[in-house]
């Protein structure tokens, strides 16, 4: 069964840890997939499903150019996934203004700019679809509760949550659904960086990873494909009544209070 047949999807951060899994999942279900990222290889360093369009989400010119290309190639956009994002492992005291502005530019402004310029193409798509067009933003469970030394990241994700609800209100009447998925711990290069204390490129600390896994009711951290499966549902017509919601997918991590070692 092809759950996305006939649909055109663009995934920002489409060559990153979770983004490439979404591209692959969408392609499996028959979508025409466009991976938008800074480079063809992305942070994971290999090629993947879907055609590629260069997109720095902080650049309005590049957002316009990417959508012009989608328009020329496909004439519409059914699905937009705003998966591009970065994190900074610092408290606010250690965060410079430049770092603060950069993470907001990517995580928040990027979601704004890409969505803004995708909307005309999505309106077109929504007219011919039973389930409407679907935008899936990337929030985080860190937008609800804090992990230590992720202050700016937590703040950007809180902003994405609020933006998600606002966009759902504004564009629902045009048949455009807007939701956010809020991942917990997912096995990605970003998480490896977090486990190694923010030292980019260092090996993931196996002990820290095991500790973290054991705190989860599911006793494991998530995979990019776990995320992709929820994004797929939200993108598909099955989710035609789902809008304006924040979908936490964290293996039960945030369902519990702090886990005492008793």
């Amino acid at each position, binding site marked *: 069964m092809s759950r996305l047949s006939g649909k055109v999807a663009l995934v920002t951060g489409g060559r990153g840890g979770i983004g490439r899994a979404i591209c692959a999942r969408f392609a499996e279900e028959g979508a025409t997939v466009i991976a938008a990222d800074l480079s063809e290889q992305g942070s994971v360093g290999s090629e993947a499903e879907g055609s590629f369009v260069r997109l720095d989400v902080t650049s309005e010119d590049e957002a316009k150019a990417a959508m012009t290309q989608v328009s020329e190639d496909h004439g519409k956009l059914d699905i937009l996934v705003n998966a591009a994002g970065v994190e900074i492992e610092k408290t606010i005291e250690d965060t410079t203004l430049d770092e603060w502005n950069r993470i907001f530019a990517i995580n928040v402004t990027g979601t704004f700019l890409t969505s803004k310029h995708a909307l005309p193409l999505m309106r077109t798509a929504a007219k011919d679809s039973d389930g409407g067009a679907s935008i899936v933003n990337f929030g985080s469970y860190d937008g609800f*509760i804090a*992990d230590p030394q992720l202050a700016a990241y937590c703040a950007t994700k809180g902003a994405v949550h609020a933006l998600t609800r606002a966009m759902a209100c504004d564009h629902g009447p045009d048949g455009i659904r807007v939701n956010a998925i809020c991942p917990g711990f997912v096995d990605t290069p970003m998480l490896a960086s977090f*486990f190694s204390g923010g030292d980019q490129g260092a090996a993931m600390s196996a002990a*820290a990873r095991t500790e973290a896994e054991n*705190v989860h009711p599911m006793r494991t951290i998530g995979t990019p494909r776990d995320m992709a499966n929820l994004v797929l549902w939200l993108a598909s017509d099955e989710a035609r009544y789902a809008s304006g919601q924040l979908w936490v997918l964290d293996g039960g991590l*945030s369902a519990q*209070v702090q*886990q005492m070692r*008793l």
Partner: protein
Amino acid sequence: MTARLAGKSALVTGGRQGIGRGIAEAFLAEGAQVHVCGRGNGNDKPEGVIWHQADVSSAASVAELGPAVGEIDILVNNAGVQVEKTVVDSTDADWELIMGANARGVFNCCRAFIPKMTTGSIINIGSISGNVADPSMALYNASKSFVHGLTRSIAVDHGPSIRCNAICPGWIETGMLEAGFALAQDPEKARSDALARHAVRRFGRPSDIASLAVWLASDESGFATGQLFTIDGGMTAASPLQPGLF
């Protein structure tokens, strides 16, 4: 100091010990007349309160309590019990005990006393455990979610004359907390680990809850209704991961 609850009459259920006692004492200090009810004879009741023997889980007992207490301005539904069990291990008797006190008790008292409140404030004691789960506390957690839901319903149905809010305490130094640590393999280690998970690096005290209860009982909080106010030293603002893991 101005007495912030002067001229007001309050009923605190389960006010003999722990959080309820802290609230009863704070209300007295702010000039309220304070009725306290409990299942016992009240031998060790807080000084200055009017004691009533009552079992909130029994509608008949609460019906008798009504005329004895009379009209009130403030109702604090604090009486509650906890049992440390999963769903599978919980017996029908556990259900009766927990849901009887924590859920039906709050319902019984609200039903009996709302008609006796011309205007006023109802303060229910919910819990952080009504929002996120404590392990092996299944019925307790669920009973507190009931309290949260009922809180909103009462606020909606019985405003504007009656305001209704819930306080959601975190780990407060009471007999309940000590009972939790006593279950640990290494109670001292469990205690220090738990402390590290609180941004304020201490557990709560009944007085921390009482100070919020005073505010919610007073006219200062006249616009607050239908809300759940968490007071937990920052514990649930942080993720459930082990502190110092990273």
